[in-house]
């Protein structure tokens, strides 16, 4: 009965769920047949339970044990039996026997006193038991959860581990420590708490035990586990205020820990979630002091000092004399002192600068200068204040003052020149030094006009501001003061933008940008870029706007200009949010939030910023936190009297309340926004704000079900936006009015509205130039196209129109790429594709005209409630509707893929049933149209992009689709035509040159998780044997420069290599090659070929690319654009046909498939797609059962157009 140690280890890993999928499958198959292994399994189960109880498991094992092992009730029973065993041994060990308790003594006493009377004994016993139980229950009894929490309290009685308050935990001081010092903790009590609470969760899972264990993890700063336990508790009871409060505390502490590290804004999101839970806790129980305390901390962390102050004050009103109050008081005092300091600093900036100047303290002077360059406020620029004081002194004959201020101005110019290379102030100072008294008089007047202009701007009177700036500009120009003339011009451009004449603003700003750059007026250059970005954004030129803003940000960072950095980041938050790139938006918040408390900003800037943050939180579904920011925005805006900011803030607050389902408050806020907007003196701003709030009102009516009122508001919004030429406003209003019309069921109106909306979408497409932004935008707007397809087909009864909509909705960026209307640009060191003129998809008639006679197209549109299948040949067009819902199709395909994409379930006959059912849904309806002799070009949609069609089984013939038809995938019908035409141009070359790459000797230190692929080397060598001319690169020689060079002159490229995906930036996904033996830092030697680099290539001779790697055809799916994969850039580079994989492939079976494929291609002279099919059929008829599984033979597909080669 000798059993292998290996088995024990394997069983242990199996039970702790540490085996890979393949290992697990193999293990289970063995388990079903092997009696010894089966017994071993039970032994190891028992051993694991014992080790768990005696705390002998490692941390990871323990975590797996609790998460997976204990999931089944049966195992829990076994655990209980293990505990019983431990109790047994515990009790039977004499020295560990507990001392006699009160019950023992009472029983002894009763036995002695009443032994003579059995009835008396019984009665006495009953009384004693009853009394005892009551006393025990009322006074001494503690549940496990209570015991655990008492131990936890004792563990942290000297010092609490986190600043946030945890519900029902006693006060202990919080000490901030550096490094990993855990502080004063009683580890014995802490471990006891852990044991008891883990047992409690196991034995009595429920709100109390989950909550208590969550508290334990929170004290241990194991925030993820704490959050997970609190969430479990909330699943049981969503109305438990204390759990919400502690979850808020956990999220707060997690965010604090992550902050500062490069968390891409995730910590801010956690703070917002924390606020959501704390608000909920207080909504459920307004007297919950812990929640109030923690909310004050969160408000502090989120740079909402006024709300934090309010919370601390409320806290101190409710908690008079506990030890927590001292901390609350300290926080309040610090906040108030900071506030006072900021106000004082602002007042003293000028005086402090003069002091530093006089002391020649350049560092201190520069620090003040770089923090105070607020280009929009009146009288804050040190340069302006010095010039004014100089002119005042000179005109009053106070030479001393004049000289003093002039010297200080020169000092500013010198500092700017030295620190940033900016020559503006020094040149301006030289001009003033040469000005005559008469000129100085004019300059004084012109500068007064500039101040007047800024005041008008601040008072939201841009038209008046324009008059003032224009006059000032004329006066400066009259004196040949080129510097201030241009500065006045910058203001004019800005004011035109604000007066809703953005085009005119843009015309002024564009030449200024290059002029400032050429003259080395760095600060003005940065400001102009920032303002230009605003104008472009208003004109919906998002990519340009974002690009210019990033340049402004980079310049501001280079100059250390705090306000410039803030401005750029603030606007980027909004711009990224607008195009749906929330991740970037959050990251900009993370970077800008600390500046709010730095005291460099004015109230209007802060009010607007809070509004922007609120909008992002609103878009992210964090409504409660969004409302907090929006209220703060309103509070600050009201102190400035900025009508525009106030109106927008109320409109947004209305929208947030609407999403929270509070329509009364929502409509009230939106109406205040509308009325405030109407009071604006400037007609254009008034209209903009009215349009904005009328759309919000429309949305609120629509959401509350009052469709007619909603339409009225949208009507008004559309009219206003038309007069303003605001495309996006128009698009949103039309899109939402379209939803209203659909509800009312008026087809003719829906049709008209649909066409208008789609025209606006297309207009929009031309304005989003970067692929990343396009993908995000159209991913969210795909529903508009789906609505159009459905409406055209179902209501307009026009299958052709519906098809054209379907074609217009997919893979448009790839179409642009293939038409060479794009290039790769580096964007803050992140590559992105920038598009040029828009390509238009082909209409059905064009597709039929240009498609090869030998081909047939099957195109799918997966809609919410139905599936449409189009069948197209050169002479025919048919449509079939199936009533399968998108959700059902998703489930079916998902389950089917799970089954076939590993070897595990292949022997299950039910997998075949699924393949047949999918055949019935996807193929059977169009089967009568299909011609066996012609290849079928499948254009999938949504989930169908993941489906290997060849594996579907015909229920009639019981054969796989691949046995009956040749299928090739194409991203869209238009792309199929383009690829087919490209293929035709590459026909005719008899001898083909092959580049075959396999198992490059990649950099192990950079990719430690990747294994060597010796079979890939033999694959590369093996396939090369079929070609007349070849270049085989394996091991060290398969370097990037070599591969790139060979690619340019190869007809067929076969790459048997590893792939590494970059989820965040697909352009960074890569094929892993050998690192060139060079010490240079040349990036060409880095040993990876990124997708972005392939997009830059043109492969004029390449006919076929085979990516014999894992998931080379599947990476990320986007609504609208379709599948993004490592194969895509090769299509864009002009390769008409690629062979790519659906899932992580098995290396050995891939070798067999690829050899057979190239053999059929070259020896039998078959076209590529047919050769791949034959190779798959060879595997299907193999004697090796494993190779007959779809996992092995169906992993690869051909993608592209019709080819004769």
């Amino acid at each position, binding site marked *: 009965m000798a059993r292998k140690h290996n088995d024990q280890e394997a069983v242990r890993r199996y039970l702790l769920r540490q085996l890979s999928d393949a290992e697990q499958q193999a293990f289970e198959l063995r388990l079903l047949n092997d009696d010894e292994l*089966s017994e071993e399994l039970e032994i190891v189960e028992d051993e694991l339970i014992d080790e768990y109880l005696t705390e002998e498991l490692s941390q990871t094992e323990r975590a797996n044990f609790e998460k997976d092992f204990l999931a089944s009730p049966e195992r829990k029973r076994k655990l209980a039996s293990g505990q019983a065993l431990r109790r047994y041994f515990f009790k039977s060990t004499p020295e560990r026997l507990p001392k006699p308790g009160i019950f023992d003594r009472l029983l002894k006493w009763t036995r002695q006193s009443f032994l003579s009377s059995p009835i008396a004994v019984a009665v006495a016993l009953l009384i004693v038991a009853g009394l005892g139980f009551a006393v025990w229950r009322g006074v001494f009894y503690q549940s496990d959860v209570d015991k655990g929490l008492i131990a936890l309290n004792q563990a942290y009685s000297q010092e609490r581990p986190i600043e946030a308050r945890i519900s029902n935990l006693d006060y202990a001081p919080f000490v901030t420590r550096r490094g990993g010092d855990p502080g004063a903790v009683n580890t014995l009590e802490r471990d006891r708490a852990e044991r008891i609470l883990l047992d409690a969760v196991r034995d009595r899972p*429920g709100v109390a035990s989950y909550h208590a264990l969550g508290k334990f993890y929170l004290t241990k700063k194991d925030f993820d586990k704490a959050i997970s336990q609190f969430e479990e508790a909330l699943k049981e009871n969503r109305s438990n205020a204390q759990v919400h409060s502690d979850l808020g505390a956990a999220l707060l502490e997690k965010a604090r820990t992550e902050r500062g590290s490069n968390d891409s804004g995730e910590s801010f999101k956690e703070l917002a979630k924390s606020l959501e839970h704390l608000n909920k806790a207080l909504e459920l129980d307004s007297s919950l002091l812990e929640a109030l305390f923690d909310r004050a901390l969160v408000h502090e962390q989120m740079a909402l000092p006024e709300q934090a102050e309010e919370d601390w004050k409320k806290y101190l009103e409710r908690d008079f004399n506990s030890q927590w109050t001292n901390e609350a008081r300290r926080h309040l005092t610090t906040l108030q002192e900071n506030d006072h300091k900021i106000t004082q600093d602002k007042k003293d900036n000028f005086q402090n600068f003069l002091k530093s100047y006089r002391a020649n303290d350049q560092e201190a002077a520069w620090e003040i200068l770089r923090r105070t360059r607020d280009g929009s406020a009146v009288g804050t620029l040190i340069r302006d204040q010095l010039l004014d004081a100089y002119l005042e002194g000179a005109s009053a004959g106070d030479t001393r003052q004049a000289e003093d201020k002039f010297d200080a101005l020169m000092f500013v110019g010198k500092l700017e020149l030295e620190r940033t290379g900016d020559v503006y102030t020094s040149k301006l100072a030289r001009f003033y030094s040469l000005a005559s008294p008469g000129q100085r008089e004019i300059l004084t007047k012109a500068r007064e006009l500039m101040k007047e202009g800024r005041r008008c701007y601040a008072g939201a009177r841009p038209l008046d501001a324009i008059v003032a700036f224009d006059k000032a500009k004329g006066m400066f120009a009259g004196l040949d003061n080129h510097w201030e003339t241009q500065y006045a011009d910058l203001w004019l451009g800005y004011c035109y933008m604000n007066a809703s004449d953005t085009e005119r603003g843009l015309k002024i700003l564009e030449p200024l940008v290059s002029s400032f750059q050429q003259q080395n007026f760095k600060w003005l250059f940065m400001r102009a870029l920032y303002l230009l970005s605003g104008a472009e954004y208003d004109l919906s030129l998002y990519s340009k706007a974002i690009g210019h803003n990033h340049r402004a940000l980079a310049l501001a960072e280079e100059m250390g200009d705090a306000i410039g950095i803030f401005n750029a980041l603030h606007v980027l938050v909004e711009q990224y949010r607008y195009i749906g790139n929330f991740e970037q938006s959050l990251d900009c918040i993370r970077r800008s939030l600390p500046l709010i408390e730095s005291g460099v900003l004015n109230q209007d800037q802060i009010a607007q910023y809070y509004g922007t943050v609120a909008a992002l939180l609103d878009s992210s579904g964090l409504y409660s936190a969004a409302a907090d920011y929006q209220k703060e925005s309103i509070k600050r805006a009201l102190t400035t009297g900025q009508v525009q900011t106030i109106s927008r803030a109320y409109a947004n607050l209305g929208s947030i309340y609407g999403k929270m389902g509070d329509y009364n408050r929502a409509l009230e806020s939106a109406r205040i926004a509308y009325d405030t907007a109407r009071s604006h003196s400037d007609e254009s701003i008034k209209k903009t704000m009215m349009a904005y709030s009328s759309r919000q009102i429309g949305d609120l009516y629509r959401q509350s079900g009052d469709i007619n009122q909603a339409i009225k508001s949208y009507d008004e919004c559309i009219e206003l936006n038309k007069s303003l030429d605001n495309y996006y406003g128009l698009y949103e209003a039309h899109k939402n009015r379209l939803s209203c019309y659909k509800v009312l069921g008026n087809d003719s109106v829906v049709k008209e509205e649909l066409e208008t909306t789609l025209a606006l979408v297309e207009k929009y497409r031309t304005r989003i130039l970067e692929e990343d932004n396009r993908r995000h935008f159209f991913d969210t707007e795909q529903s508009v196209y789906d609505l159009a397809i459905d409406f055209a087909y179902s209501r307009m009864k026009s299958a052709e129109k519906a098809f054209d909509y379907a074609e217009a909705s997919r893979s448009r960026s790839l179409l642009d790429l293939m038409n060479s209307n794009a290039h790769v640009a580096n964007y803050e060191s992140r590559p992105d594709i920038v598009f040029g003129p828009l390509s238009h998809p082909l209409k059905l008639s064009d597709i039929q005209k240009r498609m090869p006679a030998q081909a047939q197209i099957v195109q799918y549109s997966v809609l919410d409630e139905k599936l449409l299948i189009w069948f197209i040949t050169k002479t025919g067009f048919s449509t079939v509707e199936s009533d399968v819902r998108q959700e059902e199709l998703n489930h079916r395909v998902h389950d089917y893929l799970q089954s076939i994409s590993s070897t595990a379930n292949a022997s299950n006959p039910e997998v075949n049933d699924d393949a047949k059912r999918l055949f019935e849904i996807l193929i059977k309806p169009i089967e009568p149209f299909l011609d066996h002799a012609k290849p079928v070009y499948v254009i999938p949609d949504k989930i169908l992009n993941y489906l290997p069609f060849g594996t579907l089984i015909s229920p009639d013939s019981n054969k796989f689709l691949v046995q009956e038809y040749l299928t090739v995938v194409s991203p869209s019908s238009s792309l199929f035509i383009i690829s087919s035409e490209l293929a035709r141009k590459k026909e005719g070359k008899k001898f083909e040159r092959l580049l075959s790459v396999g198992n490059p000797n990649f950099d192990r230190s950079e990719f430690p998780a990747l294994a060597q692929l010796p079979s890939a080397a033999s694959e590369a060598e093996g396939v090369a044997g079929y070609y007349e001319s070849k270049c085989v690169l394996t091991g060290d020689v398969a370097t990037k420069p070599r591969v790139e060079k060979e690619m340019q002159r190869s007809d067929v490229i076969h790459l048997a290599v590893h792939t590494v995906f970059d989820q965040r930036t697909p352009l960074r996904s890569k094929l892993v090659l050998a690192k060139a033996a060079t010490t240079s830092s040349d990036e060409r030697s880095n040993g990876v070929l990124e997708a972005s680099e392939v997009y830059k290539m043109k492969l004029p001779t390449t006919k076929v690319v085979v990516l014999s790697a894992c998931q080379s055809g599947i990476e990320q799916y986007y609504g609208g654009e379709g599948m993004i994969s490592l194969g895509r850039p090769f299509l864009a580079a002009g390769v008409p046909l690629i062979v790519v994989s659906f899932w992580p492939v098995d290396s050995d079976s891939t070798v067999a498939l690829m050899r057979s494929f190239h053999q059929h291609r070259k020896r039998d002279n078959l076209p590529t797609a047919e050769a791949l099919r034959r190779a798959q059929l060879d595997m299907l008829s193999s004697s090796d059962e494993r190779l007959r599984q779809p996992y092995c033979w169906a992993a690869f597909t051909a993608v592209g157009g019709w080819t004769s080669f």
Partner: protein
Amino acid sequence: MKRERDPTPQEFDKLLAWLSPDRDEAGRKYETIRYRLIRIFVTRGCVEAERLADEVMNRVAVRIDKLVPTYEGDPTKCFHGFAGKVHLEYLRDQRELPLNESPPQPSPPDDEREREELEQEDECLTQCIGELSASESKLFRRYFQDEKRAKINARKSLAAELRLTANALRIKAFRLRRQLRRCMEVCLDGFLSDETIRG
């Protein structure tokens, strides 16, 4: 998960015949496969492992007419294949379960009941250990009563005393423990049935 219908007696007979021509042997095989499928589902973290194992057995039985003529190879592989599919469906059901409709959990016993249960367990364990032979009882105590390092040393010396390999001792102890667990189940069932009568 869509539940399979129960197999007809004919289908069930065919299934047994497929497993082995000897009906007794087939019955044993059936039970073994079922039991091991339960272990597999338990390890995969399924709450209703027995139900899932039965579902697999039913699915295979219901399809037996189609399977027998076409299926080549070891039948247990086929059961495993079905188990994979049933597991996927189970996972999907779990994902789809709305938050407010989590699977019914046994309600926690009140404090008194819990104490009572523990006492019953302890009583049963004492009784069952009492039913072991003296040598078995001694082996059992010595095998299980220590922890960590002391446990390893105690087991080594015990194995040496009994002239057993460490693994043989391990298996012996496990079998005793299994015997004890079964005894406890019977004993606890007795408590339960008493209680039912009382209720």
